[in-house]
């Protein structure tokens, strides 16, 4: 995700003072801070939709690499397969198939969703027992019966709804 946002942030952060970001890692007692990336400079990224990133993957070349780079200036048919692969790996980190490898991230995501749903369920259950006030008396059976009778006496929805289903002559549901 960092690599993706980096492409967008690169433009945004280009003008910002990069002093804070480029400060060398601070050691506090035995605690080491991870390397900071200077996002004000061109960055490398592997993206299928942007084949050629702003800079090569490996900047600091060993002497062997430099010799190989010199050889690259000559005819490429003289390079062996291994040399060609080495040149590719100098320039790029991952090949397209490597970039497109499926991860198991979806299992983590789905697992996390279920876990938190479950946790929420436990929280709601606890609330039901310890937090909710007792139900009003109108929820009890006798009270419900009285409410029902009142609705019928009021002729609630007499045409197609509630009271239409009550047979007033016989005093029972149709």
């Amino acid at each position, binding site marked *: 995700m960092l690599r993706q946002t980096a492409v967008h942030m690169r433009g945004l952060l280009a003008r910002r003072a990069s002093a804070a970001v480029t400060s060398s890692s601070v050691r506090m007692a035995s605690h080491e801070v991870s390397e900071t990336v200077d996002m004000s400079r061109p960055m490398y990224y592997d993206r299928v*939709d942007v084949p*050629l990133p702003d800079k090569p993957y490996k900047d600091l070349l060993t002497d062997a690499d430099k010799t190989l780079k010199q050889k*690259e200036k000559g005819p*490429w*048919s003289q390079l062996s397969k291994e040399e060609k692969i080495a040149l590719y790996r100098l320039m790029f980190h991952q*090949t*397209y*198939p490597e970039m497109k490898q499926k991860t198991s991230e979806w299992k983590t995501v789905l697992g996390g969703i279920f876990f938190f749903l479950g946790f929420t369920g436990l929280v709601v259950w606890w609330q039901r027992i310890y937090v909710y006030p007792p139900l009003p008396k109108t929820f009890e059976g006798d009270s419900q019966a009285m409410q029902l009778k009142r609705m019928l006496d009021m002729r609630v929805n007499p045409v197609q709804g509630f009271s239409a289903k009550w047979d007033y002559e016989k005093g029972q549901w149709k």
Partner: protein
Amino acid sequence: MFRAVYRLTSAGARSLVRTRPGYAAPVASRCYSHGKVETDEEFDARWVTYFSKPDIDGWELRKGMNTLIGYDLVPEPKVLDSALRACRRLNDLASAIRILEAVKDKAGPHEDIYPYLIQELQPTLAELGISTPEELGIDKS
């Protein structure tokens, strides 16, 4: 449209039955009220010219390739040929291989496009000494 190019949208994919990619998909229609629509040949010519610049620099190559890959099409062999030659002028074999990988990826589910492109580019690949990703064995993850 392009000889080897399909609209990679679902409309194009549905109309794709034959395996030989000499099939012309519908021309892209834009809602210009009065502007001229660029023909496929003009598009190709423009890009071939872009990559044919003798003193093209690395940035221009990258910008051109990244833009081209951003379009909803697989570039014609002649455009790719021009791009590969630009890589040669820049002494950049890795980018040449990357371009081949990228166009294979652009073809998506249409698996007959990439072999066609390689077939068309074979003379150039042989001349410049570019190995395909398959030859190098980096096409497997």
